[in-house]
């Protein structure tokens, strides 16, 4: 009897242990309040009369005298509807149990990536087009990456070489020369040089998914749609400043013996643990219209991912839709009546940008005992204000977004079955579904004779790679820099690179996601015209 009970207890224990392997995932909740105009009127009735009417007192034409606003809320529920409307042609595609999640997310400024991961290259495929757009397939990012990084995912907890925690080192781009050890000092390299990267160039990191355990998914195999390209995040950096370049932090670290329960390959004997609060200035944009270059199928736009956004930018096509885009003044033809049916209602059109401070409270520790390394776990509170073009109305936004990190059993961004991927014997992991809106997709390097299109260098990182001075395996690099705005980045870091996004040929877009050169729509854009 005792034996049986013991066996049963053991079985339970083993089962529990196996099931308890947790993977960090952030649930993103949004609580925004939007103020919008609801009436401009000649009378106290809503939207009554014409834009100009003869004033009964002056006898002159005058504009409307009564103006009203209203306040609505915008939560993650609406964002899921905006995504579903474009991605699945149905705003109700996702169930009420669906969540917006950040997978493999790293919100701390002390997070850094390795050259292997930084040198990953976005893969292009030919995306089919509907007949109405000419039916000629068009190349664009297909959501995969080619990489020498062999880790299954990019999270710190399971990263052998792709990501790591680093501390401030007194530099903003270059490797710390003190860390170059004997090589730097001209001595024989009797010890392995330790190259220390600057901090604050990668946060926040990860991919944004819709995870739905009901509706079209199940609890064990939830819907996991990668919707990263609907979003754009950017972080402000500064240089020649004291301390770190993009964030401030109240934190304390300690070096502790590594429990040694991870793989033999990756146990360095000691590891960092700690607690802290990081803060940085973050801009967060969402756009499900064709003003988003990733959703714009215009011929020649090499950033199109194969999904067609809402035609709020309609200068290339006639027919229904909004004959305006909120960028070019007076694209909507004039109608005397204030209330008109000049365009159809598109309630699920949404484009907005928030600006504010992300406050990330974290603990750095082992999520599972047998993880390769400690990972940050905490909560990001983003308090922001912003503006938007939502449901064809201009909006003023205030509110918060929360990134709540927890360990979960069934995360997104592994593969369809939420297990690690093996394709043709090749371990692919994270690279099978990854977009990098924080970088430029335009291929760089290459040129004549290389079989690679593109010869431009769009970022400081591209330049450094082209110069061959970023690889830590090379001899002492004269000007090594840290990975910056790399192809796999979720976040664009503003500071050293002045041009973003690249000038996609044949398409006119506003500066997106950040205020930039606004190009009048409909004009040739080979040479941007202000």
């Amino acid at each position, binding site marked *: 009897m005792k034996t*049986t*009970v013991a066996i*049963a*207890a053991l079985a*339970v224990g083993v089962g529990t242990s196996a099931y308890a392997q947790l993977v960090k995932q952030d*649930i993103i909740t949004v*609580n925004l309040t939007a103020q919008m105009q609801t009436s401009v009127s000649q009378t106290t009735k809503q939207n009554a009369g014409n834009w100009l009417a003869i004033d009964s007192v002056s006898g002159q034409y005058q504009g409307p005298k009564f103006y009203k606003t209203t*306040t*609505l*809320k*915008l939560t993650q*529920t*609406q964002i899921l*509807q905006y995504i579903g*409307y474009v*991605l699945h*042609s*149905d*705003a109700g595609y996702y169930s*009420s*149990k669906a969540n917006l999640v950040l997978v493999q997310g790293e919100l701390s400024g002390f997070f850094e990536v390795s050259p*292997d991961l930084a040198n990953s*290259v976005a*893969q*292009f*495929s*030919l995306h*089919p087009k509907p007949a109405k*757009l000419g039916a000629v397939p068009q*190349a664009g990012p*297909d959501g995969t990456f*080619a*990489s020498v990084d062999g880790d299954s995912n990019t999270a710190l907890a399971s990263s052998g070489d792709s990501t790591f925690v680093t501390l401030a080192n007194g530099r903003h781009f270059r490797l710390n020369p003190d860390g170059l050890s004997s090589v730097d000092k001209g001595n024989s390299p009797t010890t392995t040089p330790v190259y220390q990267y600057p901090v604050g160039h990668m946060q926040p990191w990860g991919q944004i998914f819709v995870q739905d355990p*009901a509706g079209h998914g199940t609890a064990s195999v939830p819907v*996991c749609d990668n919707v990263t390209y609907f979003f754009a995040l950017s972080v402000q950096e500064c240089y020649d400043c004291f301390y770190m370049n993009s964030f401030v932090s109240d934190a304390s670290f300690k070096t502790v013996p590594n429990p040694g329960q991870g793989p033999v390959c990756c146990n360095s004997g000691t590891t960092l643990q700690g607690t802290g609060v990081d803060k940085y200035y973050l801009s967060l944009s969402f756009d499900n219209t064709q003003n988003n270059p990733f959703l714009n199928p215009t011929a020649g736009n*090499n950033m199109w991912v194969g*999904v067609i956004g*809402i*035609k709020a930018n309609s200068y290339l096509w006639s027919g229904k839709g909004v004959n305006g885009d909120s960028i070019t003044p007076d694209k909507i033809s004039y109608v005397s009546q204030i209330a008109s049916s000049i365009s159809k209602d*598109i*309630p699920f059109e949404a484009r907005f940008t928030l600006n504010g401070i992300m406050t990330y409270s974290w603990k750095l520790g082992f999520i599972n005992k047998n993880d390769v390394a400690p990972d940050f776990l905490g*909560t990001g509170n983003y308090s922001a204000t912003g503006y938007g073009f*939502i449901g064809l109305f201009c909006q003023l936004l205030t509110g918060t977004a*929360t990134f709540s990190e*927890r360990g*979960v059993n069934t995360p997104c961004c592994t593969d*369809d079955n939420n297990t690690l991927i093996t*394709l043709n014997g*090749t371990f*692919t992991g994270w690279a*099978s*579904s*990854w977009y990098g809106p924080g970088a430029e997709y*335009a*291929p*760089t390097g290459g040129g004549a004779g290389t079989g690679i*299109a593109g*010869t*431009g260098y769009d970022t400081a990182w591209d330049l450094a790679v082209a110069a061959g001075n970023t690889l830590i395996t090379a001899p002492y690099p004269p000007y090594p820099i840290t990975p910056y705005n790399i192809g796999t980045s979720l976040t664009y870091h503003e500071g050293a690179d002045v041009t973003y996004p*690249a000038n996609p040929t044949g398409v006119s877009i506003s500066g997106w996601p950040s205020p930039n050169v606004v190009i009048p729509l409909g004009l040739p854009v080979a040479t941007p015209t202000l």
Partner: protein
Amino acid sequence: MAHFGLRHFRNELRDIMRPKVVILLMTVAFVVLGLVAFFKGGRGVEQTTAVATPGAQMPPANPKQPPEPPHAPGTPVVVSESVRAALVAKDVDEILDLQSQVDGSNNPQIINALLNKLSNPEAEVRRTAVQVLKEMNDTNAVPGLQKAAEATADPREKVAILDAIDYIKMPSFTANVPPELFTNRQDPNDVDTNAQFNKNFTKGMKDVRRSDGSQQTVPSDTPANQ
């Protein structure tokens, strides 16, 4: 005799290990383990509630000022700052755990659990509970929040609760959208929105190849950059 004893023991063991008996024993084992877990959890709650004394609802007027130490009527309980911080962190973690368990079908239970947290003596715990209730955005939480607002003397906390109520009751952008506008499938050639002609984009193409670090070869019609 010893041999007989051993054989007798084996026979007894074989009897014991019959399938029905094994299943019965395993069931009993699970029940016992469940009871152990239940009582262990129950003790955890008792420990928490022993500190989180009812009646200590009033938060400090100044949020930077440490709140009064929780105490039962007539029997002051002294806890160190570190213990208090740990208890607060535990309660906050519990709230966030509750939030992570929201799946659309268990809202009533989670709302009740969160509303109970509003009687916690620690302001941070109450503040987190209000924030999570606001983020849940469920109108079923409104009556409980209203009661909490009435019971709260701290003006800042009252305002925070009333703000949460206002937000929950506020209509959303898409609350009154007619069903016919939810889809755009009427016209398969409609270029306004995606028409489901490329099903690979969400999870990426599956012909992933791991490169040796060299640059990719892009399709021939990819325009040159710049």
